[in-house]
Each structure stands twice: as structure tokens, then as C-alpha cells.
């Protein structure tokens, strides 16, 4: 009786450990799955990529031509935010209030957009200041691949891999989050597949499994 009890306890313990390892923040070293750091600017991919349907490569234009997809320069933000300075809601409220108070609409700039302006060296209305120099926004990099891995966006985009395949459903993320574990095994899951979009012949698959596909 006691023996069986011990055995059951041990089994529960082992299974428990496995469950805990799999479902907790306890991860293998280097695994940053679910990493969702706070960014200097509360930029919402849900709003931009989801609601506004800005194509990924509008901002991350490097993806199809370079190794890095690239974080857009602040000047790229300004392409739109020269004109858009606050959320639609806030603007509507102000509009209503102005109408109610029977006055001109006051210029509105949301706190987050002020950060863009100040990075550019502009004032809160988005007008250049004479003596102020800009300073790049220091974003926190979310998707990190170790340095001994050569990852290039270019061939992946060429092969027709969808951004969301690796980056998750960014269009629904308020703050960007690493949805996949980016482990080598995870990469290989895809590199091993003979799926049609890659038009892969067997030897092509073998090619994608060469060490030097990623490590050099």
C-alpha cells in the first residue's frame, strides 16, 4: 500500500514538473517566447496594422531586400503623423466640445505622438524647432536571434512566407510580443516541410537543412 502511494506520488511529481515546465515562464535558456517588453512609445500594431491596414512593408521596408526588416526611421512615422496627431476619439470629443462651446478646435497632440515629435526635435504641434537636434527612439528589440544564426528576411519574403507565420498575428497585438519560441527546432519545423508555397523539391528541402543555411 505504502509502496503504491510512493509510486503515485513520484509519478504525479514528474508529470507536474513537465506541466510546469511547459506552461510556465520557466523556459530553456535563450528562449524568449512571450517576450513582450514595454516600448518607449506605446505604439499599437493593432491600430496601425489591424485597423488602419498599413501593410507591414510600408514601415518594415527592408524585409524584402535585406537581412533586416528594419525598424522604421522616425521620419517614416512623420509621413503620416505630420497630419495625424491624436486619436480619432479624442479629436471627435474635441470637435464636439468646440462645437458646444462655439469656438475653434484646439490643436490636439496625443502624449505618445509628442514623443515622436520630440524625437524629431519638433515642438508639440509638430513644427521643427530651430536649435533642437533630434534623437532616435530607442526601441526594445523583441525578436532576438543569437549572433551565430544568420537570419535574413529577404529569402523568406521571396519564398512567400507570411510575416504572421513567424511574428504571430501582429495585427491584433496592442504591444508587440514574441509568439514563437524561435528555437532551432521551430525553424526546422518549417524548413523541413515540403509545402507547396515553397515549391520544394526533396533536394531543396535537404538544402534548407544544411547547417550553412543559417550558421556561418
Amino acid at each position, binding site marked *: 500500500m505504502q509502496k503504491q502511494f510512493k509510486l503515485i506520488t513520484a509519478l504525479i511529481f514528474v508529470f507536474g514538473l513537465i506541466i510546469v515546465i511547459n506552461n510556465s515562464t520557466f523556459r*530553456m535558456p535563450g*528562449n524568449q517566447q512571450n517576450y513582450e517588453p514595454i516600448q518607449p512609445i506605446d505604439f499599437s500594431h493593432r491600430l496601425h496594422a489591424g485597423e488602419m491596414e498599413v501593410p507591414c512593408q510600408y514601415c518594415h521596408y527592408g524585409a524584402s531586400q535585406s537581412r533586416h526588416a528594419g525598424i522604421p526611421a522616425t521620419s517614416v512615422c512623420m509621413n503620416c503623423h505630420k497630419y495625424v496627431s491624436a486619436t480619432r476619439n479624442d479629436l471627435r470629443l474635441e470637435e464636439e466640445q468646440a462645437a458646444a462651446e462655439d469656438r475653434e478646435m484646439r490643436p490636439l497632440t496625443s502624449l505618445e505622438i509628442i514623443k515622436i515629435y520630440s524625437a524629431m526635435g519638433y515642438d508639440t504641434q509638430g513644427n521643427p524647432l530651430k536649435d533642437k537636434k533630434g534623437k532616435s527612439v530607442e526601441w526594445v528589440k523583441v525578436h532576438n536571434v543569437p549572433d551565430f544564426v544568420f537570419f535574413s528576411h529577404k529569402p523568406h519574403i521571396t519564398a512567400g512566407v507570411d510575416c504572421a507565420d513567424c511574428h504571430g498575428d501582429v495585427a491584433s497585438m496592442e504591444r508587440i510580443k514574441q509568439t514563437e*519560441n524561435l*528555437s*532551432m*527546432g*521551430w525553424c*526546422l519545423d518549417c524548413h523541413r516541410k515540403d509545402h507547396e508555397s515553397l515549391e520544394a523539391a526533396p533536394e531543396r528541402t535537404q538544402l534548407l537543412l544544411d547547417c550553412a543555411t543559417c550558421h556561418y
Partner: protein
Amino acid sequence: MANHVESLRKPLVHGNKNLKTVTDDVVGIMDKKPTGLWWIGFIIAASALTLGIVAVSYQIMTGIGTWGLNKTVGWAFDITNFVFWVGIGHAGTLISAILFLFRQKWRTSINRSAEAMTIFAVICAGLFPIIHMGRPWMAYWMLPYPNTRGPLWVNFRSPLAWDVFAISTYLIISAVFWYIGMIPDLATVRDRAKTKVKKWIFGFLSFGWSGSFKTWHRYETVYGLLAGLAAPLVVSVHTIVSFDFATSAIPGWHTTTFPPYFVAGAVFSGFAMVLTLLIIARKAMRLEEYITVKHIENMTKVIIVTGGIVTLSYATEFFMAWYSGNGYEQFVFLNRAMGPFAWAYWIMVGCNLLTPQFFWFKKIRTNMIMVFILSIFINIGMWFERFVIIVTSLHRDFLPSAWAMYKPSYVEIATLIGSFGLFFTLFMLFIRYLPIISIGEVKSVLQFKGRHGGEK
């Protein structure tokens, strides 16, 4: 009514022992305060070990560059030491397993310490493949285990992967063999223990051994099976170690005779080391009555035989190099004998070919001091054998542009000393804290047979 067996064979144990005195003699060592000789030995060994720990820590923190290796000679002291220690580790299992299978009863009083020596030597040996790595903290990558890399396994075609399996299997099986053999003796110690702590420790270690004959009955079967498994294992281990070289492409390494050559060499060097140790141990621990001159003589005879095989191997290598017509191979052997490392080669030949010849003389065989000195010569010779095989083959291989010399660094020498320190420290602790003679087995071969012996 004298036992008629006695008249045919000399007793294996001297001094007219009975069961009680055997227990008293062996367990008594553990109860007494250690002798001064033991302390001297232990302190020297522990200092050497400390030096080794410092050297290895420094090397791991700074890089393998602290060894004298270069891009041409990628292995030298490290693998020399590895093969040397694995070789040393062969005598123990050979004595306990193969001699057991051949029913050589004289093994009983030396097998425990020989096995312990095996384990310690294999521990020393096992360290080198780890510390010789550029990134020893990644050593676990040598094991095939499921991982998130795809999974990425190991290369089962690599002799180094074979080594991992061979050495670890050998260490595990030897340790199990040794421990299983020791359980009854640990129970004896437990039952004689006077202090509570000792009682508890040995109570735990002896796994509740009660001397039940039903257990003894199965135990004997298992002991036989383990001996049966260990015997081919011991041969396989050094065969696989020799594959490290034999399967390579380097002239002087790429040799089919390596497996028997290495196994014989291992037994040769292992017996030499057993002799070295036992001559010290019987003196230091006053065990002359158990480890008799006959034991020593028997071992010197094994040395003569294995020394002969080693000599034959050297000759075969040269013959095959000449007979093959392969210029690179021929060059390597000429270079061994006459090249820049000729001094190492001739030390090897001198020690390994000439030394055993002295053992043809009974006068020398029975002179403990002579045997001790000669055994040390063999140890040196066998270390140099590995050094010669590894370094001379590498330093001048195919392309003359890459030819280079090798000179050990202080760190390497300290690591070698450290490995001896580790070995002797463990051995010193062993002879102090564990029954160094298999009490049960010695009892079973005592000439004394109860009421005939006259105690009653």
C-alpha cells in the same frame, strides 16, 4: 589430517589466518589511526591534486592556448594522459573479471584494490576528454538527448562519441562491479563499528546486507555475470580508445593493429601500476601476509607476456610501414626513431622492451625494491608510448608546410601532475576508509578449514 590441497599448492595467504583474524586485520586498518607513511603519501597526493585543480581552472578560464598545442599538433599531453589513464584502468577489471572467470584464486587479496585503482584511473582518464575541449562547459553535447534544436543528435560515426559511451559504460560497470563486491565487506565493517556515525554510514552503504545465503546464492550468479560482461568490456574499451587513432587518416595512427596493440599495452601498463601501488600499500598498511610475494611474481609474469605483445606490436608497425610501400607511413616511423622526437621514442623502447626482460629472473621478481623500480620504468615507458604515437604522428604528417614542433607548457605539466594527484588522493582515501582487501573472498580461500585447522 592435513588438508591434502595444501601439499599441492602454496597457501594464498600467509601467517596462519583464521576467519576472525582476517576480519580483524582488514577492518582493523580502518579503525587504527593512519600511519605516518600514509600521511606523507596523502599530503603529497593532495598537493599535486591542488596544483592540478589550479592548472585546470586556469586553463578553462583562459583557454586551451595555455597548453603548448598548435594548429598542427592538436593533441599532446591531454590525450596522452587520457590513453595512459585508461590503460592503467585496465588491470583492475582484468584482475577481477578475467582472472575470476579463469578461477585464478590468487586474485582474491588484490582484486579490491586493483578495481579501486581501475575506477580512480578511469576517473582521471575521463577528465581529460572533458578538459581538453575548447568549450568544456558544452561537454554534455556529446550525449544524445532530445533537445529543441531540431533535435540535433550526435555523430555516432565519431570515435569520440564511441569513447563517450565506452568510457562511461566502463566506469559505470566497473564501479558497480566494485561496489557489489564490497557490499558484504561493508556489512562486516558495519557490524563491527563502534561509533554510531560509522554504524550509520556503513549501515547505509551496505544496503542492509545480512549475509543471507539466498542472497549470496543470487549474488554469486550476478558476480559471475558481471565478470562475464566486464571481460569483453575491458577489451572493447581500449579497442575503442585505439579507434580514436586507428580510424583516422593520419599516418602512424591509421593502423589496423591498434586494438590488440593497445589492449596489450593497457594490461601491461595497468599491471605495472598495480605493482607500484601494491608494493607501497602492502608496506604502508602492513599487508605482506595477504599480498604475498607470490602475487607480485604472478603479476610480473603477466607483464612479461604483455610486454612481449607490445614489443611485437612495435615490430609489426615498422614491418607494416615498410611492407605497405606507403611513403607517408614509412616516413612517420623513420621520423619516430630518428626525427626530432627520437628521444621520446627511445625512452619508450627502452622502458617497454628492456624492462620486462629483467622479470625473467626469479631473483629480480622476488626483490620488491627491484620490482617497484622496474614497474615505475614501465609506467614511464607506457606514458611515452602514447606520447610518441600522438605527437610524432601529428607533428609531421602529410604537408611539410604545416610541420611543427610541440613543447608542453607549465599548465600542461601541472595538469599531468594533478591527474596523478587525483589518482593517489583517491587511492589514499580508499586504503584508509574502505576495506582494501575483499574479506569475504579471502575467507573463502583460507587454508584454514574450521575444526581440521585446530582452533578448536
